[in-house]
C-alpha cells in the first residue's frame, strides 16, 4: 500500500499468468469459435438442452484423452497406449458395474486400473529411462490384450440409470468436463502440478532447483491413465456396454488434438486449454462437415485441410 511502484496488488499475479498463456492459442480459439458459430447456424437445435447435451457427449471422451495425452507431452513424454487404455476402462466398467461390484465398485476398479497402469508405465519410462514411445507401444499390446481377456467380444452392460445420467438428455457430460478442467487447474496450482512444466522443459535445471522431477513425471503418467480409463467408463456408459476395441482410434486422435492445440513434443510447451480446443475442433469438424453435406471424399480432403490450416494460419500471421 505504501509506494506507487508496487501499485499492482501482489495477489493479482495468478490471472495475468493465466492470460499470458492464451497468447499461443488465440488463433486456434478463433478457428474453433468460427466452427462453433457455423455449427450453431447449421443446426439451431444445438441451443436446446438435449442438443447441447448430445454435442458435449460426443466431444467428452476425446476431450479426456486429449488431456491425457497433453499432460504426458508436457512432461516430454507421449503415449501410444491411450486407445487400448480407453478400451480397458470400458470393458472393466461394462463387466463390473452391472455385477456384484456395483457402480461405485466398478468406478473404483476403473479408476484404480487407470492409475495403476499409468503409474507403472511412468515408472518404467522414468526410472528405467526407456523411450516413452516404445514402452507405450509395447504397453498398447499388453493393455489391449488384457481388454480382450476380460471381454473377448463386445458385451457386458452398464446400469441404465447411469447411462441416462451421463449420456442422456441432460448436459451432465459438460458439467463433468467443467469439473475436470477445474480439478486440472487446481492440480496445476499445486507445487507438484506446476513442476510439470519445469520437469518437461528443463529436467536438469528443475532437479537442481529442488523440483521432484521424477515424481512429477510419474504422477503425470498416473493421471493420464486415470483420464484414459475414465474416458473408457464414459464411452461404456454412452454406449450402454463394453467393446474391447472401442478405443482404438483415440491414440492418434489424442495426439492430433494435443499437437493441434499447440502442445510441443519436447516437453513444457503448450497449455491444456489448447489441447481441449484442439479436441473440440476435431469433434466439431465431423458434425459441421455432416451438416454441410460433404461426401466422404470431400470429408477426407476437408479434414486434412482444416487440420493443416488451423496450424498453418497462425504461422503465417507470425511471419508477417
Amino acid at each position, binding site marked *: 500500500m505504501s509506494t506507487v511502484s508496487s501499485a499492482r496488488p501482489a495477489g493479482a499475479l495468478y490471472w495475468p499468468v493465466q492470460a499470458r498463456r492464451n497468447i499461443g492459442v488465440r488463433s486456434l480459439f478463433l478457428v474453433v469459435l468460427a466452427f462453433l458459430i457455423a455449427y450453431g447456424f447449421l443446426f439451431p437445435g444445438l441451443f436446446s438442452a438435449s442438443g447441447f447435451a448430445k454435442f458435449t457427449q460426443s466431444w467428452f471422451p476425446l476431450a479426456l484423452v486429449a488431456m491425457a495425452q497433453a499432460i504426458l507431452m508436457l512432461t516430454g513424454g507421449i503415449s501410444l497406449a491411450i486407445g487400448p487404455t480407453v478400451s480397458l476402462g470400458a470393458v472393466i466398467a461394462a463387466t463390473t458395474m452391472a455385477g456384484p461390484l456395483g457402480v461405485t465398485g466398478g468406478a473404483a476398479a476403473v479408476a484404480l486400473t487407470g492409475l495403476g497402469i499409468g503409474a507403472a508405465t511412468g515408472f518404467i519410462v522414468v526410472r528405467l529411462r526407456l523411450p516413452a514411445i516404445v514402452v507405450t507401444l509395447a504397453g498398447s499390446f499388453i493393455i489391449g490384450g488384457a481388454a480382450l481377456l476380460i471381454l473377448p467380444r463386445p458385451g457386458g452392460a452398464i446400469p441404465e440409470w447411469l447411462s441416462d445420467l451421463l449420456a442422456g438428455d441432460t448436459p451432465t457430460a459438460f458439467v463433468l468436463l467443467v469439473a475436470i478442467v477445474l480439478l486440472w487447474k487446481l492440480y496445476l496450482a499445486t507445487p507438484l502440478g506446476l513442476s510439470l512444466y519445469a520437469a518437461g522443459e528443463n529436467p*536438469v535445471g528443475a532437479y537442481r532447483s529442488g523440483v521432484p522431477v521424477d515424481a512429477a513425471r510419474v504422477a503425470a503418467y498416473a493421471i493420464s491413465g486415470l483420464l484414459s480409463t475414465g474416458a473408457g467408463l464414459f464411452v461404456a456408459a454412452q454406449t450402454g456396454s463394453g467393446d474391447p476395441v472401442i478405443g482404438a482410434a483415440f491414440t492418434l486422435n489424442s495426439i492430433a488434438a494435443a499437437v493441434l492445440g499447440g502442445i510441443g513434443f519436447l516437453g513444457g510447451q503448450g497449455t491444456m486449454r489448447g489441447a481441449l480446443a484442439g479436441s473440440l475442433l476435431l469433434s466439431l469438424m465431423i458434425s459441421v462437415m455432416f451438416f454441410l453435406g460433404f461426401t466422404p471424399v470431400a470429408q477426407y480432403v476437408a479434414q486434412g485441410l482444416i487440420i493443416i490450416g488451423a496450424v498453418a494460419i497462425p504461422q503465417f500471421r507470425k511471419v508477417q
Partner: protein
Amino acid sequence: MAPLLAARGVSKSFFGNPVLRDVSIALQPGRVHALLGENGAGKSTLINLLSGALRPDGGTIEVDGRAVARMTPALARQAGIAVVQQELSLTASLSIAENIGLGAYPKRFGLVDYSALAARAKAACELVGLHEPLSTPVGQLPLGRRQMVEIAKALYRKPRVLILDEPTSSLSATETKILTDLLERLRSEGIAILYISHRLNEVMKLCHHVTVLKDGICTADRSLEGTDAAGLVRLMVGRDPGDLFPQWRPSPSPATAISVRDFSAGLMRDVDLDIRTGEVLGIGGLVGQGQEDLLLGLYGAIPARTASATVNGAPGLPGGVPRANALGLAYVPADRKREGLHLIHTITTNMMLPAFARLPALKLRSRRAERETARGLATQLGIKGDLARQAQALSGGNQQKVALAKWMPHDPLVLLLNDPTRGVDVETKREIYLMLRAFAAAGKAVVLLSSDTPELVHLCERVAVVREGRIAAMLERAALSEEAIVSAAMGAENRKVAA
C-alpha cells in the same frame, strides 16, 4: 569460526578423466570468495559438488563444520545454499514469478499461494532491478534479464551461502553494477558468497579471498589483499600475463564491406550503417535494445527490410543464411547452447558443420580430413578435451571457443559476433582479441556486439550504441570511452543532440 560451507579434499573424474584432484575450499560468512581458473579448470564442477548436483569421488562436503554424508540439491537447499547457474534452471514457458519460486513455492491449503509468491518474488526482483511484470514468461526475456531472474531465484530462498557461476557474463554494465552493489550488501549481512567470473576487474573490486584452480588442482587459496589483476592472472596461468588488449593500430585503406540504408529488422528501425573492411565495429548499449536483431537481420536469419544495401559488392541483403555464408558472412551467436552448438554431437562434428552446410550435398566425406581440421582448430584456439566427445561435456568457455572455431576454415570476410567472449577465461580472451585485430588487419570486417564495455573501448574503430531499436550514437575511435558508451546507452547523447 566454522565455515558455512566447505569442501575438504574433494576429487571428481568423468569417464576416468580427473577434473578435480584433492581440492579444498571454505566459505566464510560475510566474505566474498572468488573462484578463478581457466576454462575447464573445474570451477563449475566444484560448485556442483558443493551444491549436491554431483557427488564427489573422494573427499567430504561440510556444512557448518559438520561433514554431510551425501549432499543432494535438496539438502543443500535446506542448509541455505543457493546456486546461480547460468540460465540453466529456468523454464521458458513459466512466468518470472513461477520460475523464481520453482521448487520452493509458498503453499496455502496445498496449493501454490500466488499472492505470497507474488509478494516474495517481487521483493527478490526489486533487489536485482527486474521490473518486468511478474507474469511475463521467461522465454520472452533476453538473455541478460534471464540471468537476473536466475539471481532473483537464488535470493528468493534467503540463502546463507550464495554461489554464483559467472553471473555477469551476459549482463550489461548497468546490470553488473546493480549486482555488485547487491552482493556487497548481502555480504555485509553476513552471507557467504562464492563468486566465479572471468572478469578480473570485477573480482578485484568485489572479492576478499580467492581460490584458484588449474587443471583441477588448487594452486592458490589466499586473501586478495595486496594482489593486483596481473597477479591474479599469474596465479591462474602460472606465468606473467601480457596485456589483455592488443595494441590498437589503424587498419589500411578502408573500403565498404556492408552498407545498408533504412534497414529494419526485429526491434531495429531505419538504420543507416556502413561497415568497413579493416575495422572492428562495436555494437553497444543496454541489453535487449535490438542489437541482436541488427546482426541477425544482416545475416539473413530473421526477415529484414532495407531501402538499399550492398553486401561485399553484391546488391541487396542476403535474405537467408546460406546466401549470407556464400557472401562471406559468418555469425557467432551469444546463446551457445541453444543457437551455437549441437550439444549431443561430437566436438569435431560441431566444428565441421558450416563446411557440411556448403559442400555439395552428396560428396563423400573424409573423416580423416575432418579430424585433422578439427585438431588444427582445437590447437589454434586452445580447446581442451577429447574431440570425439559430445560438445556438452565441454566447459562453458570451451564451448564458446568451438562456436567461434567452426567458422575459421571458411575465411569469412565479415564476422558478426554476438558477445563472443562471454564466459571465456582471460587467456582465451586475449587470444580472441588478437584474432579479431588480426582479422581486421587482414582487411576484413568484424562486427562485435558486446556487453563488456572495456572490450568495445579497446578493440573497436567505432562503436554504434543502440537504444530502443535505433543507433543512438556512432562513437569514433577518438571519442571512445566507457563513460561515452554508457551515457549514450542511457540516452544522454540523444538529449545532447536534441538540445
